[in-house]
């Protein structure tokens, strides 16, 4: 590795200020002793440095992780995969079997309120989506499962959802 004190100094600053720093502040820090700092910065922005990507835009400079290492974040964080919370599982099961279904109807099945955070999480997983709206007061959204849901669970269509034996559970009406 070639020695370059100015480059290292610039990198040290960016690694202490990972939220980014303005070029104005950089100039105040470096300008006097190292008038050529901008050239070094341009060079770094162009080539990156090790796992770092340098972004300079709108007068702000930031060192970020090169996106090719993003997968590491999952490996570093997910030492133990978090179990799905029960409310999430149940909401998913109700939507999968009773779609299209409105939130009040889901709540009626579960007997308790379903926070919008739950539906949001299922949307984040790309497992559910809004299929339309029911006519009536408030035009409530109708929820259903996505093609990603089918893909994730290895189903070719909803018809392949495993059958539920509700005879024990539901009385004949």
């Amino acid at each position, binding site marked *: 590795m070639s020695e370059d004190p100015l480059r290292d100094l610039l990198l040290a600053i960016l690694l202490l200020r990972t939220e980014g720093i303005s070029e104005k502040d950089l100039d105040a820090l470096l300008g006097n002793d190292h008038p050529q700092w901008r050239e070094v910065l341009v060079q770094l922005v162009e080539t990156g440095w090790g796992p770092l990507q340098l972004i300079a835009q709108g007068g702000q400079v930031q*060192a970020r992780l090169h996106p090719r290492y993003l997968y590491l*974040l999952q490996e570093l964080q997910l030492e133990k995969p978090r179990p799905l919370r029960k409310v999430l*599982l149940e909401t998913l*099961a109700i939507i999968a079997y009773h779609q299209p279904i409105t939130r009040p109807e889901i709540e009626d099945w*579960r*007997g308790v309120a379903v926070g919008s955070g739950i539906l949001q999480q299922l949307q984040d997983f790309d497992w559910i989506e809004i299929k339309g709206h029911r006519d009536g007061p408030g035009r409530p959204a109708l929820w259903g499962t996505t093609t990603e849901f089918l893909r994730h669970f290895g189903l070719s269509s909803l018809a392949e959802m495993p*059958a539920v034996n509700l005879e024990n*559970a539901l009385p004949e009406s």
Partner: protein
Amino acid sequence: MPADQGVASGEVMPIPEGLYIPPDALEVILDQFSGPLDLLLWLIRRNRMDIRDIPVAEVTRQYLSYLEEARRRQLELAADYLLMAAWLAEIKARMLLPLPPSEEGEAEDPRAELALRLAKLAQVQAEAEALTTLPRAGLDFLLPTALAHDPVPLVPPVLAVSRLPELLRQIAQRHRHRQARAPAPHFAFDLRQRILEVLQCCRSAIRPLHFHEILPRQRDRLQVGLNLLAILELLRQQALCLLWQDEVWLLSAVAGDENV
């Protein structure tokens, strides 16, 4: 070096070696002790006495001279300091009596508990001293801040589709139980009834009410919503009015309006 000098060096006035205390310094010096036990430990160390064989008479004399000096300068000392003086006096008195045998038959040294407490404090101070030998981030070494990165794509957890039917069965079972338990759980959807209740509530109150004071007993989302509708309707009819008092909105009945 006594531990209490090494602990926060640079910020602390050195405690003078002799008994003489420079004027105006006593308060600063006493401030450095975390309590009477700490002062006592310092006295014992300065006199190079043995914790396991404390010459109680001498230590007490020195301890009291500090207290006396503090009193003379009208410094406020915590009651703990007087309590310690009383304890020292008690130990001193018991030292003059023949030692009573303890349960095991051995004579119990009246200084034993004091020695134990001093030893514990001495250990704490040694531990604090050890801690100060550690380097500290930002003083002795420098850590980079965690790197910024693009948002991480969310990975859905692994879930087998085979779990879903069982879950649904359980939900349906609970659903059935609920319905069997409460055959007619019909909510009071009657907005008109609620409007009357809210109005009644506000009229009978001796002061304007906060929103939460008007809530019905049953506070599920539906009932709270119904309540809000009732309030809005009453505001529209100008049977209620909003007051801005003490940084909150309050509801008050408008006098004279009896026909809702």
